[in-house]
């Protein structure tokens, strides 16, 4: 028990376009309902806009667009996961939030080599769960956009 608990990572699971993703809980600040999103003209398509979360300005990133999942008609992003990076606040727009899972590295695997390159860039591996797979979201890679996309 002692040995395994050290290696166990806790993940906040989220659903984006029917796929289960997991974010390391240490990186998740909060989960909130995005309200009154202000679009930012001329910004990167991934950026859904900016919003006010308790006096902080949060830049919202639409994970569906980021992952190339087509937006369902009229489906508003229901939830956002708040993360912080270099003193700035971001909100990842997702479809819904699931439970928190404690997973040991035993079930973790590398990205399959044939994974969509857009996904591969933001995925830090895959966990084999019962009945489904959970893609580990690499938060830093999700935020490391702009440069790569501009170059493309």
């Amino acid at each position, binding site marked *: 028990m002692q040995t395994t608990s050290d290696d166990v990572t806790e993940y906040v699971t989220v659903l984006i376009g029917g796929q289960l993703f997991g974010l390391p809980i240490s990186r998740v600040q909060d989960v909130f309902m995005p309200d009154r999103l202000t679009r930012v003209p*001329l910004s990167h398509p991934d950026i859904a806009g*900016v919003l*006010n979360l308790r006096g902080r300005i949060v830049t919202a990133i639409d994970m569906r667009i980021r992952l190339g999942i087509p937006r369902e008609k009229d489906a508003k992003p229901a939830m956002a996961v708040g993360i912080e990076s270099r003193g700035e606040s971001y909100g990842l727009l997702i479809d819904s939030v699931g439970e928190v899972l404690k997973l040991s590295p035993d079930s973790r695997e590398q990205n399959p080599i044939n994974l969509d390159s857009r996904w591969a860039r933001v995925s830090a591996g895959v966990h084999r769960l019962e009945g489904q797979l959970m893609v580990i979201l690499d938060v830093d890679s999700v935020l490391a956009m*702009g440069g790569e996309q501009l170059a493309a």
Partner: protein
Amino acid sequence: MDDLLREFLTETNESLDVVDVELVRFEQDPNNAAILGNIFRLVHTIKGTCGFLGLPRLEALAHAAETLMGKYRDGSPVTGQGVTMILFTIDRLKEILGDLEGAGAEPEGDDGDLISQLEAMSIAADAAPAAAAPVAEKAPAPAPAAAPEQALERALRPGEVSLDELERAFRETEAEVAVAPLPEIAAPPVAPEAAKVEAKKPAARPAKPASAAGDDEIEGVKGQQTLRVNVDTLEQLMTMVSELVLTRNQLLEIVRRHEDSEFKVPLQRLSNVTAELQDGVMKTRMQPIGNAWQKLPRIVRDLGNELGKQIDLEMHGAETELDRQVLDLIKDPLTHMVRNSADHGLEGTEQRRLAGKPEKGTIKLSAYHEGGHIVIAISDDGRGLNTDRIKKKILEQNLATEAELEKMTEAQIHKYIFAPGFSTAAAVTSVSGRGVGMDVVRTNIDQIGGTIDLKSVPGEGTTVTIKIPLTLAIVSALIVESAGDRFAVPQLSVIELVRAQQNSEHRIERIKDTPVLRLRNKLLPLVHLRQLLGIAGGEPLDETAGFIVVTQVGSQTFGIVVDQVFHTEEIVVKPMSSKLRHITMFSGTTILGDGSVIMIIDPNGIASAIGTDVSTEVNETEADARRGNERQLISMLVFRAGSREQKAVPLSLVTRLEEVAVDKIEQAHGRHLVQYRGALMPLVSVSGYMELKSEGSQPLLVFSDSGRSMGLVVDEIVDIVEDALNIEVSADVPGLLGSAVIKGQATEILDIGHYLPLAFEDWFKRKEMRIEALTRKLLFVDDSPFFRNMLTPVLKAAGYDVVTAAGGSEGLDILKGGDKFDVVVSDIEMPEMNGFEFAEAMRSDKRFATTPVIALSSLTNPAAIERARVAGFHDYVAKFDRQGLIAALKETSNEIAQAA
């Protein structure tokens, strides 16, 4: 790094900055023992502390410099070479300190070169002490005077705030626990020690008078009511206050929606406290601009030596304060411009003599506040810009064609020195002329939302004027809407608002696909915000109509077309996320009172997006036209209210154009009121019968003076027109001054003075008036710009040619200027020179002793009237009594007519 060392670094760096400045002064005035004493003490302190902290390199250098200065103190003649040597030593000390700060330890190195030279000079100085013996005798005597003076002179340094400010900031937070009275703790223990130091000095031998003082010296200096506060702490405080302001705004918004909320009163109080707290914290960030100038005397001195020029640096308004963030950003541009003036602007000594100018060239720096801005001027009395050389350079760099140059005015050509990579220096010197020049200066100024202007007269000199906002943290912005989204446009760059409509005179026209607007017979390039930003939504775009925000950036004027214009708001600027920073159209984000986030438009970005060359010419000619006709032209706000006739008021009287939601207009005691900026503002209608819109928003003209506001209800704002105001038919209808033709249409000119008392009965208990005569010259003295602006059209309507003055002394200056005035009307309650003093001064001058003067005042007791009679006023009119004033003016005119 331990605290001791850190403190030492801060102290020493500051001391060295002082030494730098003082040495330059000393060189010009070598017999001033007070200055030398000051320098000597500072260097000695540094030496002492270095020894204590175990910093041998610093100590050895400081010692060598101190020895040489000791010789000067003892009366050896001061040589420029020696001072240069000491300055070098100080530079070396700074270098070592810099490394020490980075590494935490003294860097390896050898200062034998400097030390041996310093020693050689000390020996040389020893050889000639006799010659300067009288100075030596004088030296010790004034020395004691220097110290207390220094203690007083010491201004707040970077990162320091006065204790009062902090105290106030703490008090505003209303902590439960009483704040300990800091000044009392800090000050007393130091004072006796400082006194002791002073007492010792005269007795000590001249060679080492400060030895006993040592470190106590610094303590003595610190005995001021100031406290060092970490800049980060202040920044954090500022951030928290910004949050508080936002939260307050949100609360206000909520309470506004709930009638008779019990929160109203406490919230009002919270609002006031927040405002004061914000003020206080902002003040802690304020620093005198002198901090950015500190290094300039040394730079100018070194330049003078290098270039063989004699240069005098004059500095005015060093105490003018501005936000430290802004200060940091303008430091380099200022230094650069002073270098430029010294290098390119001023001629060599020989040339100056030939031109019949004093050999010594002057560079003048001045700073002053103007509204929410600070204006800094850097001027020199040098040769002025060389237009031909700039032209040549423009052609070389293909910035314009010969034909284009032909059409340009000198001023327009001069503006090219701000073009990237532009440098006209014939020879590349070590000083300037490296191609990074004024363009960098301009970019820096642009970044902080400032403007830069340049004036140059051949043979007389060049003046560069910079206007920058006092702070970047909270700015006043105009909220606009485009394609359903709101944006904030910084007020600083907005010149005016024009509403364009299909059938009105102002409509958007097109040249090919480029939208333009005819504005006062000029073409203004336009850009649709929604097209520029590539956004869709809201109402479909109407190609010919919209609100045009006329914007000026540097020399460029252009119009931003938006769908809607709301109000202005003090917004807290929040930096943009790094993911959005590449969008040059925006400079930041902000949270509005309703909690939504909006983007702040960056006028600079828009300016560069629509191209640089289109609008320059428009602006120039327009600016010239404005300058030429300043006196004749009055900007009028044209609107409709009550009836179909166009109505107008002088724009300068209108504080703001607002639109309020109709459902927010409340009724109380038969009056219409609306909550405006945390207070209730009465609404007044033009016709006396309140016709409000049934739904949507109600346009208002807001008039404010001395913290009071009144809203005049109008149906529609038509336009802002700049025209010569020529009131042709005067009316007897109350509330109307008369009619005038504005842009070819008969327009009723409203007398705002009639409406103000409808809102607040006592409005004029303080200020006001009116007149009757033929074309007579009238001088009107009043300190309130509001009343000056208001009465100018009123008096013009009465047939007077009006000249205004903002105070007694300005009025006298105008009189002394030679213009003959038929009558003078003066306010009584004015700062500095009041109306009585003004009248007495007039009476004592033969030239205007007979000119009738009418007093306008709210003081109408017999004593005041008697006092006015004694002072020499012909008549005395209560400010509220407009009819009385007209009668008084009429009477005065008749008297003059009879006398003639």
